[in-house]
């Protein structure tokens, strides 16, 4: 498995990281190195196995539909970069 420069560019955009061409080159090397180390997995026969995203926990819990207290509005708004009245204000959305 290999990674292409396009995929690095896409991935850095996805997580909003601005990378210089040098940094991209460095990253490419590091990611390829990681892939090489995991290459042996390709030889393991997995065809009969179900993908196990949760190898440790077998079963989840659920809860009843009973309301619990929420935060106060002051607390909620205190963490926002910009507040207008009772709302959190954000910049224009359409490009």
């Amino acid at each position, binding site marked *: 498995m290999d990674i292409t420069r396009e995929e690095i560019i896409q991935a850095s955009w996805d997580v909003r990281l601005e990378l210089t061409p040098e940094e991209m080159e460095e990253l490419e090397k590091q990611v390829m190195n990681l892939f090489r180390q995991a290459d042996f997995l390709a030889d393991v026969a997995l065809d009969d196995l179900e993908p196990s995203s949760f190898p440790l926990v077998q079963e989840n*819990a659920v809860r009843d539909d009973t309301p619990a207290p929420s935060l106060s509005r002051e607390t909620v*708004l205190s*963490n926002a970069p910009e507040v207008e009245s*009772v*709302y959190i204000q954000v910049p224009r*959305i*359409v490009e």
Partner: protein
Amino acid sequence: MSEFETIIGLEVHVELLTDTKLFCGCSTAFGAEPNTQVCPMCLGLPGGTQPLLNKKAVEFTIKAAQALNCEIAPKVAFDRKNYFYADLPQGFQISQFFHPLGRNGYIEFRVDGKIKRVGIHQVHLEEDTGKLFHLGDDIMSSPFSQVDFNRAGVPLMEIVSEPDIRTAEEARLYLQKLRSIIRYLDISDCKMEEGSMRCDANISIRPKGSSQFGEKTELKNMNSFRSVYRGIAYEEERQRHAVLVGESILPETRHWDEAGGVTHAMRSKHVSAGYRCFPDPNIPPYSLAREWILEIKSTIPELPDARYQRFIAEDDLADSAAEILSGSKELADFYDAVLAFHNDPKMVSNWITSELLGHLNAAGQDITESKIKPEALGKLLQSMEKGEISGKIGKAVFEEMFNTGKDPATIIKEKGFTQISDEDTLHELISSVLEANPKSIEDYHSGKKRAMGFLVGQIMKETKGQANPQLVSELLLERLKELK
């Protein structure tokens, strides 16, 4: 000119009627003060809180998926759909990308008297986003937006259709049927105007007979059944025109502008294509017991199609009446309840579909707001059937019942509406009317049978419609024979 066909698939989101959010205990009550029903979990604040699944939301989704004829997944699993948007505090939406709760179902509805089946690709459960308010006229011109996170994390059920829909009218009918089923299940109120039911449409066109799909656009912001119809009709025409003049259709999200009656390009699909979905590491899967799925199935009530069939087969109602009455659970329940008091299906259905619905529509109300209760309507119809009041008086009593919610017997008594069936009183009335209209007697005897109708009309007029019309006719006929 080449002929095209339109390919439409609908993605419908409905907010489930749970008391709390999907993964935390914050209230879902509609209309609360902005940003008061939020906690670290649904705000996506780092640290501490772990998502804990609301069992009721799972139950509701399984119920809907079964009512929509889907296969049910053996387990509930959630994935993260990653994207940046101001109404999504976590930076990802918890959804079911890999294992939707329901798959491969269908909905059937009638189009021009024929049954149309539209496949249901999947039914899944996810979190709703926060609500954005755009300053100024709309999202396109707004310099800022404001966010209320009360809605963030509310359980949202998404129903994705197969691209089996071909016209704007079919899209409207599909949506209506879907809403009807979900309301029968009592798991969402499906109010498009309030946003508890939302519909996005994927639309493309292709030359008729082609088996390949054309490039599609996704249409958003249709907030009523009417705008779904108008938006789709506009978009298919826009695409047809573009293709005919040699322009290409771009894969983009378009915004329906209700006031302008047009669609605008909002954003290109290319950039937002990669949601990088992966299983949510904080939410291990939850296995579904077969018994629980069956138990949920057993709580599904008689659905609109079954009710429609029953109204036709057992009550001998006309197609149109059965369609109207079965379309809403409340209306169908109302009809059934009236029958318990007056077992004449045709009469009951006529009074509900013409009088009651006519009055409710004019007042902008629905059946749940009706002041007339089933028992009262049943009693009114009984009074007419028994001849205690005439049909005409019946309508006047109905009017009063609709406005005041009073019992028909009370109104009849208060207004002195009781039908006059006393023969002595009627004889007196007949005498005075005959005395005043000697010409009509002559006319009648010279063969003009219409004179009879005129005389009955005069007596009804004298009594303000309260005379028993059948008895009046009989007595009048006797008197006219005597006079010959």
